[in-house]
């Protein structure tokens, strides 16, 4: 398929996700608790999009490779080594703002 409104359904049913390094894709996948391999396209990507993928890899949440090493990565991957991705905490932000406005 080319473009769907939401991949949520497909994500829910997947056992493994292989994706480009777009932030939305990475985070949506990790939040659903699916193992993720991020594929970097060196020619297409501009540096800032790689930042999040690299950091997620450093923290042990995703596997990381480029187009030419994908097959090798799939053959040797150990998905159990991936750490579960903790959700963000917007309540900390709310708390911070409340302090700024003296609402606490």
């Amino acid at each position, binding site marked *: 398929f080319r473009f769907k409104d939401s991949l949520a359904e497909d994500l829910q049913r997947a056992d493994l996700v292989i994706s480009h390094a777009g*932030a939305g894709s990475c985070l949506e996948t990790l939040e659903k608790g699916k193992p993720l391999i991020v594929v970097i396209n060196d020619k297409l990507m501009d540096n800032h999009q790689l930042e*999040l993928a690299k950091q997620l890899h450093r923290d042990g949440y995703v596997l990381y490779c480029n187009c030419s090493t994908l097959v090798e990565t799939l053959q040797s991957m150990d998905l159990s080594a991936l750490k579960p991705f903790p959700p*963000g905490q917007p*309540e900390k*932000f709310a708390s911070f*703002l409340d302090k700024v*406005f003296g609402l606490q």
Partner: protein
Amino acid sequence: TGGHTTEILRLLSCLSESYSPRHYVLADSDKMSEAKIRSFEQKRAETYSKSQFTLDRIPRSREVRQSWISSVVTTLYSILYSLPLTYKRKPDLILCNGPGTCVPVCLSAFLLGLLRIKRTIIVYVESICRVETLSLSGKILYYFSDYFIVQWPDLKKKYPKSVYLGRIV
């Protein structure tokens, strides 16, 4: 736009009704955000019946990878366009997270503050995608915001005046 809208709605998710009415400002070219916002506000109204919000559109101040000289011109135009809107709403707080659209709105509020017409607190939250470098909006608004929030420790080190609360979206 897209990712920014999703992030900002998450930021709003835990705010109390003290932060009301909410005035959303979108780029005129943004098609998808309005639906997301209405959906968010609709759910919110289920819990807080007196919940209020408005939606305004302004011309997009900069296209992706637009040359910086023409960006200055289009951004100035956007600031002038935003001034009457910011003056009308006179917000106590402006919350933004990085799309080009937010720069003229914040700068117009900053200007109204300098002119002693309305003092608005500007809170900027850099996108979670920014781990090591700031977006262009971030680089500008670092100097104009009252609170500049980053979501990764590297940025806190590079921009010491920023606030680090960890991942908040």
